[in-house]
């Protein structure tokens, strides 16, 4: 009786929550049925989960930077995806150069095989084969992206620092166009293989195949996330960032060096974007000028789902988006498999309907 009354109450007050709960139950039930029956092998399920985790971590990593700049500078940076792409291209140009300089001309290597440059199979870049060049590439990817972030901030955003968020957002669309097609200008517009898949060892863990590059990514992503967490928790910088997100004018009046904090924000955001872009290529094995742009909407979905300004929100949002886009394939088979991405977007919209501020909205955790 008591239960019934409570249930009715819940249904009236939080219909959305009830729908979500019921839908989740149904899906989990169906999933269990599939796993116990022979609709889905544990290995395939595990594969989906692992894939979802890897892509989710990358989205989360890239999302942290977007989230930080979003809350501190007050605008949605549509060029973030193209920072990611530049991170990928700059990093891999160097990784290629180091891995192949003993055998090939520098030009073709620096352009990652553009024109008549050497093929990836010949250069042979992989974490086990050329670990040093991979690490050097990562460092360059981070450094280069930090560089362009700062340069663009100086040239584009700083002169209009006081403009409203929409003006800045539209300027960032301009930056996005310019950056993306500058990649085409210097490199190429297709998709090109980069890593040497024949030299990437993989491990079979309970039927789930995990390769060394994916492991590398997970490790690096986690290290970077923990690093950012510590940096923001332990230093007064994190507080200054939150203060600026609260009220930039007051921060200025208080004596917080506003420009300095903004610069740091770009360094963090750009660096993480560059790292994410570099690592995305490590897992995909291919590189394309629009790789960041293609990820951008998913990253936005993750950031918004997690709540703008929240570092943990971005990470959680990234994981949710990553897992949702992979696990949905359990149900979306055949021609419907093209709906994996719409499912991720749909999920974001759904979350916003019930939590308009995002999962971690209102709680700044930077």
């Amino acid at each position, binding site marked *: 009786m008591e239960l019934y009354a409570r249930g009715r109450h819940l249904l009236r007050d939080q219909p959305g929550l009830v729908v979500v709960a019921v839908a989740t139950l149904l899906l989990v039930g169906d999933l269990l049925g599939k796993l116990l029956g022979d609709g889905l092998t544990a290995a395939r399920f595990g594969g989906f989960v692992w894939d979802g985790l890897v892509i989710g971590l990358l989205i989360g990593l890239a999302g942290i930077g977007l989230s930080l700049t979003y809350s501190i500078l007050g605008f949605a940076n549509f060029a973030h995806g193209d920072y990611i792409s530049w991170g990928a291209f700059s990093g891999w140009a160097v990784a290629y150069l180091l891995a192949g300089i003993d055998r090939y001309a520098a030009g073709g290597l*620096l352009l990652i095989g553009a*024109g008549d440059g050497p093929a990836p199979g010949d250069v042979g870049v992989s974490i086990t084969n050329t670990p040093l060049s991979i690490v050097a590439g990562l460092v360059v990817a981070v450094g280069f992206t930090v560089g362009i972030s700062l340069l663009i901030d100086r040239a584009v955003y700083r002169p209009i620092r006081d*403009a409203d968020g929409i003006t800045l957002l*539209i300027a960032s*669309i*301009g930056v996005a166009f*310019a950056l993306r*097609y500058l990649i085409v200008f210097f490199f190429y517009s297709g998709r090109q293989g980069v890593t040497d898949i024949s030299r990437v060892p993989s491990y079979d863990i309970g039927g789930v195949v995990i390769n060394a590059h994916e492991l590398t990514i997970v490790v690096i992503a986690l290290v970077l996330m923990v690093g950012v967490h510590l940096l923001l928790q332990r230093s007064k910088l994190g507080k200054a960032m939150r203060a600026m997100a609260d009220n930039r004018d007051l921060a200025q009046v208080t004596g917080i060096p506003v420009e300095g904090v903004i610069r740091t924000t770009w360094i963090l955001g750009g660096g993480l974007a560059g790292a994410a872009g570099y690592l995305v290529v490590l897992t995909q094995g291919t590189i394309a000028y629009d790789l960041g742009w293609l990820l951008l909407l998913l990253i936005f979905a993750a950031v918004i789902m997690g709540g703008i300004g929240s570092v943990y929100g971005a990470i959680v949002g990234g994981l949710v988006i990553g897992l949702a886009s992979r696990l949905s394939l359990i149900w979306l088979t055949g021609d419907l498999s093209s*709906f994996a991405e719409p499912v991720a977007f749909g999920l974001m919209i759904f979350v916003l*309907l019930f939590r308009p501020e995002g999962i971690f909205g209102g709680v700044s955790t930077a």
Partner: protein
Amino acid sequence: MSSDQFQTGRLTQFRELLERSDAALVLTAMAAFYLLFLGIGAILNYDVAGLISILGQVTFFTAVYALIVLALNLHWGYAGLFNIGIAGFMAVGVYTMAMLTAPPTGSPPGLGLPVAVGIVGGMLAAALVGLVTALPALRLRADYLAIVTVAISEIIRLTYNSPAFSTFTLPGGIALGTGGASGIGTVPSNPVQAIYYVDPSSAASGTTPIGAAIFGFFEAVFGVVRSAVIVDLTYGLVLAVVVFLVYTLLARVGNSPFGRVLKAIREDEVVAKSLGKDTNRFKIKTFMLGCALMGLAGVLWQGFGTGAVYPQAFRPELTFYIFIAVIIGGAGSNTGSVLGGAVFANLLFLLPQYLPNIIEQTFSIQADPNNFIAAVGPIAAGEIAPLLGYILNQRLPALRFVFVGVLLVYLMQNRPEGLLGHRTETAAAVNLSEGHTAAEQTGSDLTAPEGGVDDE
């Protein structure tokens, strides 16, 4: 009065005219664009038919951009609804039109209904999808709404793109389809063809009496045998009329108590509510009206204008182009929207397509290195031709986008309010300063009783 003085006098007069009359402003701008492109045609040695064709294209693209920029201005300029799902709403409009009107025997099959039903159906469908989008819109902050709309637009595009609905059967056994990634190629032909051809779907079917007369005239006077260019130009002019009608409609919406509430919602929705306005209803109505117009723009542009519907035409980039156009013109101003559409269509969309030809016409650069290093390498040896060849022959399309991006940044830094956004256009059906004694003498004689329609 010396002729010099006379000239400057004329010039000031003209400038004043432009400031006062929006019609003069738009017409002058269009005249300039027509001249520019006629000049380009002349450089490229076009014959009369070619010149008519280029004028037709200028008219067509100006009109379709103006149309959709106007619709966006209603959302963004007036109500502050940050809709970046424009491409999706256009897609809904044109797809619905195509699916309603495509022949049932075609591949994919359609319903074979009359074109008029298709147009209205397309607008209604876009409005309905707008309604569904507006429901979350009511709860969300501007930038969240933006992400939701772009997500919905992507969902729409991916749905049309998906093979799942390539063809499907409705419950009643009627077959219908989106054509998946190959789209719908059997869109009904452009309605203006009915003026000229006996069977509007085929130029070979013979000309109507009007068609015969007009084609005959052009052939006799200008020696134009390509009748298609005349049909295209006609369509452009029809679209210009549509733009005028939509402009009038939106000017009235803006210059009215309705528009005033929209403006208030843009500024502070809680205040609008606390002044007794049912903001949700205003937002929904506005969103639906704007989406219907976007659907219409989709039908007129991607449907009749190009004769086929493909999902890839509705990528988010299209939305950004429209946004760029609205910014160029100045958000909030309808005249600015038309101008912004014109500037974008002509200077950023069409002109770059002709630019390579003009450059090639002037200098011929044979060098054609296929990568950047090969292009810059020779510079050390003092050779600049490879780089130029690389730029012109290999990377000009990419540089066009770089240019668009840089221009956008420049605009945001130097003229964020756009060409006409600085004009404060008071949202009221009458001139508010009038009626007050102190302000009476200023400009009251200039104001037409209809308020904004012509001087917006």
